[in-house]
């Protein structure tokens, strides 16, 4: 990849082409529970902007530029009062839309305050999350439900994890299913798994074939390999604009979603939204947990800074607590916990991986396709003002799911997917098609 393309793809600050693309979509930025009614506002850097999330005593949620529109003092110190947040410097007050609603330092306040407004994101609370749209279009574009409304809200499990690297690096790990057999399960022989189980087939063949297909919302792929007599084991994954993925962690059809939210060019937040899940796959045939899957890292307390939420103790400075001893005796990576293993490799590439340096192989097809797709969409938006995939049509995200499935060799996995899709949809829905 050319250095210019890498820059184009990765930079998301205000005024960048990819930043403009990101600002066409609704993105999950916080857990609802992070914002306490009338409580302390929360500093958040999102898409390179320093914003403040807060919930008024009445329960309304705002996400606004942190600077008071008067003289730039940070509203992070502000008083969270009825109807809005008040700057402690001169008492100006702003509601959740950024509108100035009180200006006690001005004699003729009513007229003046009406003209003063802080840049603010459009905000929706849904599924236990605060979602934000940072673009300028009003009304904001339609909100995509994915299929999260198809599962009971109290069974939705949400995890946030900070990654100290560019968002695209993280995302690329999600659509790279082959790393699982190495990074997470390296050195574990297929014989350790129940013959015929998915882990059995995955570990017996570490070089699956790939098919990746563009879709109206992004792309779909299957990584498939032989699964006994005349059968193929398919791992179907999704990528959804601008930075959502669905990884094949469970049997095909479970509702789940991951988002790589760019905090700035060199930091991102992985937001994992899981519906109800089947029992964990990370066990061997005796039901023992797989080595190295213990633990999810040690979460540090939020430090109140712009990038201070959901960070793990495991980081580059301590080699993600990799143990050379455990590497010889327990597992392949010497790192505890699948998520920490993922984090270690993507952070180790540097804040923004130098994609002029890499050598992509046959297992990186989905990655190459995703990059092309994102580049094209960002260019068309920048040059022609073309609305990027899915931004204007939330219905495209409906009945899109991922997962693994074993099918006869002669069966077209995409046809089966489309059939299942109608089932999830409860009625007819446009088929996904192979183009060219």
């Amino acid at each position, binding site marked *: 990849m050319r250095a210019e393309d890498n820059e184009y793809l990765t930079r998301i600050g205000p005024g960048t082409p990819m930043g403009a693309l990101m600002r066409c979509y609704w993105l999950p930025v916080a857990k609802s529970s992070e914002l306490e009614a009338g409580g302390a506002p929360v500093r958040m850097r999102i898409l390179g902007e320093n914003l403040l999330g807060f919930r008024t005593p009445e329960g309304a949620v705002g996400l606004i530029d942190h600077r008071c529109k008067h003289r730039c003092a940070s509203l992070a110190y502000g008083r969270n009062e009825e109807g809005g947040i008040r700057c402690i410097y001169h008492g100006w007050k702003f509601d959740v839309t950024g509108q100035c609603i009180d200006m006690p330092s001005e004699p003729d306040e009513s007229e003046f305050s009406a003209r003063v407004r802080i840049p603010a994101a459009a905000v929706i609370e849904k599924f236990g999350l605060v979602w934000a749209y940072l673009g300028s279009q009003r009304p904001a574009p339609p909100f995509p439900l994915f299929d999260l409304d198809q599962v009971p809200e109290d069974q939705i499990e949400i995890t946030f994890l900070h990654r100290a690297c560019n968002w695209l690096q993280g995302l*690329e790990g999600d659509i*790279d299913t*082959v*790393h699982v*057999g*190495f*990074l997470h399960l*390296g050195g574990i022989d297929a014989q350790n798994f129940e013959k015929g189980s998915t882990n059995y087939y995955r570990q017996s063949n*570490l*070089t699956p074939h790939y098919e990746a297909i563009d879709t109206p919302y992004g792309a779909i792929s299957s990584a498939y390999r032989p699964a006994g007599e005349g059968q193929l084991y398919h791992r179907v994954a999704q990528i959804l604009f601008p930075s959502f993925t669905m990884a094949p962690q469970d049997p095909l059809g479970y509702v789940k979603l991951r988002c790589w939210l760019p905090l700035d060019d060199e930091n991102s937040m992985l937001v994992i939204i899981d519906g109800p899940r089947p029992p964990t796959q990370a066990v061997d045939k005796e039901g023992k947990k797989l080595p190295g899957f213990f633990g999810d890292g040690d979460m540090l307390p939020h430090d109140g800074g712009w990038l201070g939420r959901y960070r793990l103790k495991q980081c580059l400075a301590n*080699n*993600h607590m*990799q143990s*050379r001893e455990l*590497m010889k005796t327990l597992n*392949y*990576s*010497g*790192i505890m916990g699948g998520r920490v*293993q993922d984090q*270690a*490799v*993507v952070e*180790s*590439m*540097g804040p923004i*991986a*130098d*994609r002029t*340096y*890499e*050598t*992509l*192989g*046959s*297992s*990186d097809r989905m990655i190459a396709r995703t990059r092309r797709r994102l580049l094209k969409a960002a260019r068309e938006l920048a040059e022609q003002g073309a609305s990027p995939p899915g931004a204007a049509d939330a219905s495209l995200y409906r009945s899109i799911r991922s997962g693994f499935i074993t099918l006869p060799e002669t069966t077209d996995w995409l046809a089966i997917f489309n059939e299942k899709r109608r089932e999830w949809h409860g009625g007819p829905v446009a088929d996904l098609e192979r183009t060219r």
Partner: protein
Amino acid sequence: MLSREDNALLTRVGAGTPMGEMMREYWLPVVRSARLEADGAPERVRVLGEDFVAFRASDGRVGFVDEACPHRCASMALGRNEENGLRCIFHGWKVDVEGRVVDCPTEPEERRARFAEMVPTRRYRVHEAGGLVWVYIGQRSEPPAFPAFEFTALPVENVAPLRGLIKCNWLQALEAALDSAHVGFLHARGGKAPQRGTEVHRTESAFMRDKKDPKFEFEVMPYGFKEAAIRDLSDGNCYTRIRQVVLPFFSLIPRFPGDWRLVLASVPIDDENSIQWYIRYDAEKPIDEAFFRKFGTDSGDPDYFNSDMGDVTTMWGQDRQAMKEGHWSGIVGRQNAYEDFIVQESMGRIVDRSREYLGAADVVISLARRLLLQAVRKHQEDGTVPFITDDVDFGRVRSVSVTYPQGENWRGIDAFNPPELEWTRQPAA
């Protein structure tokens, strides 16, 4: 004083910069040999602004490869060091000690070997000598001349290399190593100036504290220069420190003939960070490595002996009370290197040499800069590699401190066979 442009020319060492390209013509000492254990943890190495990983393979050979995996740039420092190669934990690609990709298990078996052969990687040369791993990261297919200093030919137990890490540009480190005029001040400690020439104080540090304005003379050599710092003593002799400077990195510190010897090497990590090697050795007998490891430091870490040095936020632990009570620098209970490092860091990451005002004691600094500027311009013009060439026998390049009757010429002195006054061999007081 230097113009802003010349300062940038001398200090910037990234790939593509003139000084960076010149430095890429040399063998660079980057890590202690003992640090790398066969099949043990790989070591991240940044040098000249680029990131690498050093590891010792199962058969004992040292590998030096780009930190980024050739596949998708995950760090090879996380890799599995096994079966004579380093295997990336992300997708299992493996490189050997020469940087060749030898396995790509994510590729279909039938074309795996061919695919692996085609993966482009950069290859580097490695040489182990004097307890150090030296690397060559330049472009030439034939590695450059190796500066086979005396210590590189000694048994490892005769050499004790310790690595200091400083948060400033390499030239600040080199200049501090060159500047012998500071010794009588910065390292004065708490002692009163000793009596000149008395029996008890015939030590080198006593001479240096006693006479803070030595006369300097120089002789430019193909590899850099020799410097003589001449101090007249009251007994009619003079005390002269003859130092060898092998540009661009090495300063050989003068010591009395029978003592252990010290070589400093200032190697750029990047524009704003440097390694300062303290390589102590004894030409005749084993050296007490454990002693030097703990000498004036609490860290006990031979790969970062000054890791407990602190930083500007605490003024490096400077003790103002001790200064009132007579300690010169307020850096108490530490070896001299701490004082050196602290003043270098205090100048800022890259000191602005257009703001300096140099005097008589700084002639050595000016000379070194002049030689470096000439060399880097010539290298830029026609690729001439200066200083370290096969024409010099570095095994015979040694520094020495000597005393001899005033009026005699230091230039004829052979550091391996110097004139010797009776008391110069007495142990230090």
